[in-house]
């Protein structure tokens, strides 16, 4: 009995230590969007399904733990031609690996309410170091995080068979994210 209580206490303690400031994302208000450029025209899209494990205390950014899993099958631009092409083997190749993952390794403060997350983004099995500047605004227990980063599709081997010279699809893909989360 004593032992069980002790074990439970240890587990609880460990759990609370691992998640010092956990957040729950509100998917309805959050968005990970991207802008592909097709023949000079922007094609706006977003990922409809993703999950994030966020442990972030704005006062102690160095202790932050952020991991985001994005379902690449849920990339949607509203253009059926584009959406139909994206899962193909030359692009996301979702038949092989449907999840992209961002893991922050270092988070540091750069100004009031401004932070920088350095980490690794893995798409199509290719891990690329990514620096994501973001802002953090809290209102009570609800916080809004906004960030953007421009990725190069070549780094992840996207569309190299179809268009290796950016004749149709630009190399640069700006990614914008807005995350609304509630502190647990």
């Amino acid at each position: 009995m004593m032992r069980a209580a002790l074990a439970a206490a240890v587990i609880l303690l460990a759990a609370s230590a691992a998640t010092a400031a956990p957040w729950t994302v509100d998917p309805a208000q959050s968005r990970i969007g991207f802008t592909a450029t097709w023949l000079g025209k922007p094609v706006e899209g977003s990922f409809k399904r993703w999950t994030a494990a966020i442990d972030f205390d704005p006062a102690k950014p160095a202790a932050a733990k952020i991991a985001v899993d994005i379902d690449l099958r849920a990339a949607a631009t509203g253009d059926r031609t584009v959406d139909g092409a994206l899962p193909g083997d030359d692009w996301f190749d979702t038949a092989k690996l449907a999840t992209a993952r961002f893991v922050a390794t270092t988070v540091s403060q750069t100004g009031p309410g401004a932070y920088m997350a350095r980490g690794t983004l893995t798409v199509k099995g290719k891990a690329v170091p990514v620096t994501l500047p973001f802002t953090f605004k809290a209102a009570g227990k609800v916080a809004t995080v906004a960030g953007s980063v421009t990725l190069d599709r070549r780094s992840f081997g996207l569309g190299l068979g179809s268009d290796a010279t950016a004749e149709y699809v630009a190399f640069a893909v700006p990614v914008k994210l807005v995350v609304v989360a509630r502190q647990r």
Partner: protein
Amino acid sequence: MDGRSRYSTVAIGFHWLIALMIIGNLIGGLTMDYWLDNPDPAMKQIGFQIIQIHKSIGLTVLALSLLRLGWRLAHPVPAMPSHMTGTERLLARVTHWGFYALMLLLPLSGWAMASTGKLIFPILYFGTFEVPHLPLDKSLGGLFRESHEILGYVAIATIVLHVAAAMKHHYLDRDDVLARMLPLVKPRQ
């Protein structure tokens, strides 16, 4: 009214509908490089749109041609004029059956090309439903592309021959060969 010397309304309908679509697609195919090789992205965009329409028209030609082939096999065509020589008859038959082969092979090679090309896009039939790609090996892409182009030129040559023959029948032989394929025109008696 001599019913036997005239093509049926269905045959006339098939002929002109498919003819229009093939000519449209040949123009699209011939001007494709002009659009796609243009440095202006807006021109490339037009080329890309033309390709999408080109695919839908090609698939329509394929479907209509299968129906037309069925109709052709089930319904006798009017007899050739008696003045035609053996060589002329043979040439006419080869041209006509050649057209059937082209009406099926041109769209099929295009479909195969679209299924194995460098840029793979879903084929949306006039922007509506998706037509699946043919399950073909990507390494054959170049071959299909070549065949599609060559067949296109063969089609142009065959059309030139076909139109020249129709003109010869109409203006030199003064028979009803052209008239019996024209809608709303009564054949010469």
